[in-house]
């Protein structure tokens, strides 16, 4: 009890409610304007079928949601999104970690490597999409041509798995830089003495990595996991749009792409809003899950 009291007194405490409220106000205002208001609008709109010009609105209650969930293609989009997000996260984090471990061991010229590895992050997703599309173009793409020489007929225009592979690589590519930066910083923060001690005890590189480096890197890994999943869910839209437009058939139609397609191509704002609400709920649940269950295994 006593130690608890001492601990409490060390904290800065405010009397009353107004000053603390005032101090957090800017953050609350920003969150309200840029998050709560649009999210509230989306929830409100999801209860109507409006016409595109905003001339009339029909109250349908949960009709938009019923329409969505009775559509087998929408339900299939969940699986597509899950596969896509997991693959993007795994590829971008895995490659980044590998590169960071290599760069961390480097003594000379590490600055050059680091700078070069950061470049792809500056490329906008839509542009990255176009770049990859050119390389894998079914007729003139350079990679397609080499694959043809090897006897493989690349055709992501009709082959769903190839299309998925292509959008995953294109989405993960730019993200590797970002993840690399964090992993490298994380690796450099691990005290060298711990690793040296293990080395003296006879632990090989792989053992050191598995038992010391990776666990000590877990706060970074956890942070990147959350951020990358959110990225895969929301920000990969440009890549999908430029490379496949969700095809062939529906093999790369992820949820956020469908929000765009229904809202801005189909002018079906009611359905689009309902899908945003669903997406919001999924990502919220996912983040809560991550913090509740995965964070337990993180060593800070």
């Amino acid at each position, binding site marked *: 009890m006593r130690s608890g009291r001492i601990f409490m007194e060390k904290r800065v405490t405010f009397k009353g409610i107004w000053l603390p409220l005032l101090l957090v106000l800017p953050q609350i205002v920003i969150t309200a304007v840029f998050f709560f208001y649009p999210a509230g609008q989306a929830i409100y709109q999801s209860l109507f079928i409006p016409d*595109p*010009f905003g001339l009339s609105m029909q109250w349908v209650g949960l009709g938009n949601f019923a329409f969505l969930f009775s559509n087998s293609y929408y339900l299939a989009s969940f699986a597509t999104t899950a596969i896509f997000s997991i693959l993007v996260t795994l590829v971008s984090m895995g490659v980044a970690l590998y590169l960071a471990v290599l760069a961390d061991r480097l003594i000379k010229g590490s600055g050059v490597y680091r700078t070069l590895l950061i470049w792809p992050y500056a490329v906008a997703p839509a542009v990255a999409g176009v770049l990859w599309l050119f390389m894998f173009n079914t007729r003139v793409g350079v990679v397609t041509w080499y694959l043809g020489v090897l006897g493989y007929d690349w055709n992501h225009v009709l082959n769903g798995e190839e299309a998925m592979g292509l959008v995953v690589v294109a989405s993960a590519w730019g993200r590797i830089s970002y993840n690399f930066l964090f992993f490298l910083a994380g690796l450099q923060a691990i005290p060298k003495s711990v690793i040296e001690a293990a080395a003296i005890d006879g632990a090989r590189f792989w053992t050191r990595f598995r038992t010391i480096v990776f666990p000590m890197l877990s706060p970074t890994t956890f942070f990147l996991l959350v951020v990358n999943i959110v990225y895969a869910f929301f920000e990969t839209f440009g890549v999908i749009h430029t490379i496949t437009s*969700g095809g*062939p058939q529906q093999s790369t139609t992820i949820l956020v792409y469908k929000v765009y397609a229904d809202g801005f*191509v189909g002018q*079906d704002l009611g359905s689009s809003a309902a899908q945003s609400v669903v997406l919001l709920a999924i990502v919220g649940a996912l983040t809560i899950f991550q913090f509740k269950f995965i964070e337990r295994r993180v060593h800070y």
Partner: protein
Amino acid sequence: MVKNFLFAGASTLAFAAPAFAQTEIEFWHAFTGRLGELVAEQVETFNGSQSDYTVVATHKGNYSETLNAGIAAFRAGEQPDILMVFEVGTATMMSAKGAVKPVYEVMADAGAEFDQDAYIGSVKGYYTSSDGNMLSLPFNSSTPVLWVNRDALSEAGINPDVDLSTWEQVGDVLGQLKEAGSTCPMTTAWQSWIHLENLSAYHDVPFATQANGFGGVDTELALNGEAQVAHIGAMGEWAQDGKFIYAGRRNEGGANFRAGECALFTESSAGYAGIKAEAEFDFDVRPLPYWKAVADEPQNTIIGGASLWVMEGQTEEEYKGVAAFLNFLSSPEIQAKWHQDTGYLPITQAAADLTREQGFYEANPGTDIAVIQMTANAPTDNSKGLRLGSFDQIRGIIDEELEAVWSGDKSAQEAMDSAKERGDALLRRFEQANR
């Protein structure tokens, strides 16, 4: 810095000064590149031809983006006077009563001369109300034709003048091309537009009920009819045999054809400029083939492209300017030049006649194929056009289902049944939104 600022200020004033005396007409369009330059040229000619109005043309992105920009602007009360909308957005615009002002009304209110009969029936038909009044002004219209790489046919030992008027004949030629080792006997652009929408009109079978949606929003797709399924089934077989190469949902196949890889190519008549500029082989244009087994004679094909819609909520003075500009665009000289420069169809008979008089068709054989194919017969309920809500999305569904046929995942019947079912669900939503 100060000097620059002053200079900038002075130049702004210099440009702004004459605008005070003139009414400004805002015109949002979707054209870039060569087409963008040609639009700019039309606008300049108009601005130079009179002193009351200045048309300001702005590029707003592709067709979908331009439509969205117009919708967003209307919601904010900042809409342009004239908005370019692609043909699949027609039903959306028509239903937006209170957001658009029909062209015939604009013309009548402005007291402008306007003879709706001067416009070519099968072009304006897409944009007229059921009582025959023009709601928007057709701007760029094209229709699908068959492009032939004559050199590729010769190389395969086929007479380049071989008759390709029917799909039966095309099927035989594809077989010969394949046997001769062609890697791409045929490809296509805009598969839904050409191989379903136009196929239906061309064989005088409905694509949708209620006269393809002209009769009301309670329409249902009818694209799973016998004629359509037979055609898609045949195309699917050709795809399996490597006789038809699918390149993508839009006009990706154009690159393959222009590079000389593909022998036959179904694409819009407006592909003319690009093919002429790039093709290093002897090519010609043929009418779109039809199935002899389905129809003795083809009906007419329908158009694709965009029209100009006049937005509600502007001043009377601006509407007068809009009327003057639309009449200027419809004038024979401007239309004939546009038709010849771009390969788009002329919108008036006078412009078509003028082009013929000028000897353009003789100098450029095949350029009149599209005009003839469009105007051969008076349009029926099945060949006037399509007026379906959420049509852009329905085309997306059709693309998906066709891909399933090309890859062999579904039979033509399954795919078309599924396209109907999924498309009808969207049509019901559109009906509900516009009740």
